[in-house]
């Protein structure tokens, strides 16, 4: 092994700066852009992951004097990430494809290439900090992306380099300008890369059969069981949603549950949206597993605050947590990322 590092360059400013900082630090840097899905005419230009982004990554790599390659992951990304995204919605859940992309694509498949290229390290533009085999929140609280990283293999963490994790976003842009990178002023990508115009239903319509229950009409009911309207597909709804619901209630109503078996979308009050416990499945640990009684902080949604809790039960498959304070809209399919009090990411799971 050398001090060679394979940098995942999306063509955005964060990974551009990551690559540049590693070059400055003296690493033997190889850049690569993962081509994750087919960029047909149906997908208009995206801030991230588009062919234009590959061009941007190539320009940055050229400027930095490092080799750059395009890795085709379309088959595997389609299977590991997009297919799961679709099937989760079909089950009435609200998935986070970025978590699986990190677990299966960026920090597994990409690693295979890094291994073949004798790279001791892999690097990304994530706002998270890998240090001594442990992962921590990024320094910029507004940008911290550690939430999406709970599912990666623990053994990978020691090989991760996270050059922008200790920067704030404005500092990253400043660095990009100082380095003269073409991506310095590129707008933030906030959407899911393979979902054009944030319209995930269109993706579901393309992948699911036309008679899929998730996209078929069904009843809107109250928690008391009263039918108050019709919806045109439970996959269009998510827990905590308020917009687009039947009106006529004295108090605001929210989606509090989705019942795929009966196609019911269930409305309830704000109080009924509060959860006092959470159960996680598909567990993964980046530290030693917790045991019943252990204190832990859990974050149930991206950019939501972590709340303190305590482990009630823990098996290899599931973890049940009691929360010290209620959490709004705990949503099946989202992630529960587990932290210690110092912001170290301990692991996590998918909310059951």
């Amino acid at each position: 092994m050398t001090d060679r590092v394979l940098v995942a360059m999306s063509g955005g400013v964060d990974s551009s700066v990551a690559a540049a900082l590693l070059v400055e630090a003296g690493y033997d840097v190889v850049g690569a852009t993962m081509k994750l899905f087919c960029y047909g005419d149906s997908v208009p230009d995206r801030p991230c992951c588009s062919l234009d982004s590959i061009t941007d990554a190539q320009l940055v790599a050229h400027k930095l004097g490092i080799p750059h390659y395009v890795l085709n992951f379309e088959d595997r990304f389609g299977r590991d990430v997009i297919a799961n995204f679709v099937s989760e919605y079909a089950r009435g859940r609200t998935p986070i494809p970025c978590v699986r992309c990190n677990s299966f694509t960026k920090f597994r498949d990409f690693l295979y290439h890094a291994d073949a290229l004798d790279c001791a390290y892999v690097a990304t533009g994530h706002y998270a900090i890998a240090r001594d085999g442990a992962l921590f929140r990024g320094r910029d609280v507004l940008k911290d992306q550690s939430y999406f990283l709970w599912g990666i293999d623990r053994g990978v963490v020691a090989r991760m380099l996270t050059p922008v994790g200790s920067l704030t976003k404005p500092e990253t842009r400043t660095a990009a300008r100082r380095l003269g990178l073409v991506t310095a002023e590129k707008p933030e990508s906030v959407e899911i890369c393979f979902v054009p115009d944030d319209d995930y239903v269109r993706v579901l319509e393309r992948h699911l059969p036309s008679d899929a229950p998730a996209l078929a009409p069904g009843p809107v009911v109250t928690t008391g069981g009263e039918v108050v309207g019709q919806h045109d597909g439970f996959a269009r709804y998510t827990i905590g949603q308020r917009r687009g619901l039947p009106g006529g209630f004295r108090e605001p109503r929210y989606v509090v549950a989705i019942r795929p078996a009966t196609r019911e979308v269930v409305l309830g009050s704000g109080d009924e949206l509060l959860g006092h416990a959470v159960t996680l499945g598909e567990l993964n640990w980046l530290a030693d597993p917790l045991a019943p009684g252990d204190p832990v902080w859990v974050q149930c949604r991206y950019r939501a605050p972590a709340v303190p809790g305590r482990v009630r039960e823990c098996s290899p498959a599931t973890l049940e947590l009691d929360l010290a304070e209620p959490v709004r809209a705990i949503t099946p399919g989202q992630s529960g990322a587990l932290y210690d009090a110092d912001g170290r990411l301990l692991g996590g799971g998918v909310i059951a």
Partner: protein
Amino acid sequence: MPKRLVYLDNAATTPVRPEVLEAMLPYLGREAFGNPSSPHRFGRAARAGVDQAKRSIAEALGGGGGGGGGVEPAQVIFTSGGTEADNLAVIGCALAARDRGDPFRVAVSAIEHKAVLAAAHAVAHLGGEEIILPVSGSGEVADAALNEALARGVAVVSVMWVNNEVGVVQPIARLAARCRDAGVPFHVDGVQAFGKIPVSLSDIPCTLFTISGHKIGAPKGIGALVVRDRHAVEAIIHGGGQQFGIRPGTENVPGIVGLGAAVELAAREQAAFAARAAALRDDLERRVLAVVPDAVINGASGPRAPHVSSVSIPGTDSEALLMHLDLAGIACSSGSACSTGAVEPSHVLTAMGVPRELGVAALRFSFGKENTEEDVEALVAALPKIVEKVRHLSAVLHR
């Protein structure tokens, strides 16, 4: 940075030769920058450069046009490169045929360059028809398919002399004679043939012939179509009356002069180059097979041009091989194409019946005048380790 850089991708492009650059320089600066259509001295200087290039090219391609079946300078039409020349030949013939009331239909071989295949497809898109002529396992166009196409009536038949991916050489004289006898224009894409194998159009009764500059040490952006029968083609771009209106637009004078110089050199050096390239290629293939015994040389069963070798390495994929070779300082190209979706074998290997798993694992090595035995040496030294790593990677990724 690797210690030594090895360029084995000369079929993709070549550097501009110093002699060519020198010939071009006067036409870029004050000396002869004029518009060749202008009657004044500036124009005349530029015109002289263009005319000299036409002569050089006509001479190199067979010369002696006066009834001997060679090439006349006036038959050389300059284009922006091989792609445009191919498009002009295929689409231009189809449009001319349509205007005459003849079949609006073209026939091209299945292993043509995309410039020809896509042009044929464009004819179909315009309301015409494309016939794809299949090839044998050794890459040769099947006589029966050609006869059938000629019997149906076509505006043009287009077959490349030397295939760019595997180097297969077509029996071009025989195909041309068949088309002449049928009264059908015949286009030869000679981009990979000229300078590599003996090319004399005095023996080849083709109507149209494409060459490209940057494959033989001229710059990118210049090529030519030899048009032996002006009535056979109709212009596909329109403008002033330059080049008989077949390809209007102010001539790329420096490029044309560069092409003329490069063609002259390539013709003069062809035999010596072919001998050297064939020796290097044979050496490469023998030594690659020695270190990777299950490697497969594609197209080896038929006649081949000396400068191209297509090698499939089972259990790998060519994109990964290219990446690893590049990091080792070795440049070549793949026999696969990243089409929409996954990596697929190239249309050439597929048409030749190469199995998919070998098609996605194909590398193309192509020699130029600057290659030496040390280049083969460097490749053979680097290859075993790379093959081992990429095989492991492919096994993991396809698990």
